[in-house]
């Protein structure tokens, strides 16, 4: 697996998204609607508590990431482009890392919009903004390695739209708990807690990245 090929796949993904940004648009719209609906359902007063606001944000982010990743692979299948990438020397190995890299950037953009919306709608006071950014970056890093893995496993299967969340969400539970607690810690001024949760999120991202790089090539047909 070469870094050049990973970069090629990632750049190709970014170009495709720039040309036809339906993954980004649908993920941003989805995260905004979900944050709004969730906040209304639990009540704005309850939703503005740091732990609740964090949980609502990260649940919305997980679903938005699943949506964006699924859309990315659907586009490949619609264009019959996936087979061409797999046929390239090293393509099978590079596609997981390239996709995960590009989708991290895309989900990062979704997090900026969703985070700004949460802060605005719920009038959240954040005691440690720098730590909140750190936790958000770590949380965003933790999503694509898991979600790309499960989207690849469900590729070309019937009912894959339902299957991916069923498979991915239970595995994402530790990341969602860590991201929620880290967000709440940053919002309430617990610097050590925020750093510890961010570290845990980075560790999860590394573990699943290694796992994905090792076994995903076997799953791609």
């Amino acid at each position, binding site marked *: 697996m070469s870094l050049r090929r990973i970069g090629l796949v990632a750049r190709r993904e970014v170009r495709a998204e720039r040309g036809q940004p339906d993954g980004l648009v649908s993920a941003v719209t989805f995260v905004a609607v979900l944050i709004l609906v969730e906040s209304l359902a639990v009540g704005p007063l309850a939703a503005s508590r740091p732990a609740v606001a964090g949980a609502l944000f990260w649940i919305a982010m997980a679903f938005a990431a699943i949506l964006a990743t699924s859309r990315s692979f659907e586009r490949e299948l619609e264009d019959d482009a996936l087979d061409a990438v797999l046929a390239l020397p090293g393509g099978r190995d590079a596609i997981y890392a390239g996709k995960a890299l590009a989708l991290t950037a895309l989900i990062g953009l979704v997090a900026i919009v969703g985070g700004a919306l949460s802060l605005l709608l719920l009038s959240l006071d954040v005691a440690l903004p720098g730590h909140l950014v750190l936790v958000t970056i770590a949380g965003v890093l933790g999503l694509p390695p898991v979600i790309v*893995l499960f989207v690849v496993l*469900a590729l070309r299967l019937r009912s894959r739209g339902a*299957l991916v969340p069923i*498979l991915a969400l*239970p595995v994402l539970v530790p990341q969602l708990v860590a991201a929620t607690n880290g967000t709440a810690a940053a919002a309430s001024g617990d610097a050590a807690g925020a750093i510890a949760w961010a570290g845990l999120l980075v560790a999860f991202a590394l573990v699943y990245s290694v796992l994905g790089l090792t076994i995903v090539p076997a799953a791609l047909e």
Partner: protein
Amino acid sequence: MISTTAKTTSALRARPFLGAASIVALFVALWMALVWSPPDAAMGNVVRILYVHVANAWLAYLAFVIVFLASVAYLWTKRPVFDAVAVASAEIGVLFTGLTLVLGSIWARPTWGVWWSWEPRVVTTAVMFAMYVGYLLLRNLSDDLERRATRAAILGIVLVVDVPIVHLSVTWMNALHQLPSVLRPDLQPTLDPSMLASLIAMTIAFTFLYAYLMTARVDIERRRQARVIEARA
């Protein structure tokens, strides 16, 4: 391409003996758990649920570790027998994880005062149950033998991460659930000897039952694989 035939293996020949051993061991273990071992000083006779509950949980761990090992073996060798072992073990694991949750809930009502508690061991076990239901779902949505086996093997490897999380959750986090009494890091069980003996007897009986169910289910899966190959030929 997968090529397979349903052969009479030594495992199949052992099935009647495993069935008989399961029945005998279950009777002995039930007698020890219900009659021979004393009631608990604090819980009274409610403690007897735990003999079956813990044996169920052990079987769930064992089944999912076997799924992992069979998945690694399948990816390594591409031999369909390992895929059959993986699906058999996953189905048995899901069944016994479900029973673990139900029995735990029955035990929790008189002990904790609630049917369900959001405490780490219970929640991580429920998550593990959901993960392996997803594993079976993935298998059922895929028609092609080789692709299904490969995808399921990858998932079987990924999901095993949850097994140590379930077991160690009570030591990592503040929990209502009691700490491990038998599989402890210091290898010093904290149970009364008669209770420990009853628990070990029940665990052995359930392990025989697992082996019996495995031989039966693997046989069914091997026959199914053979039928698919024949239909395709």
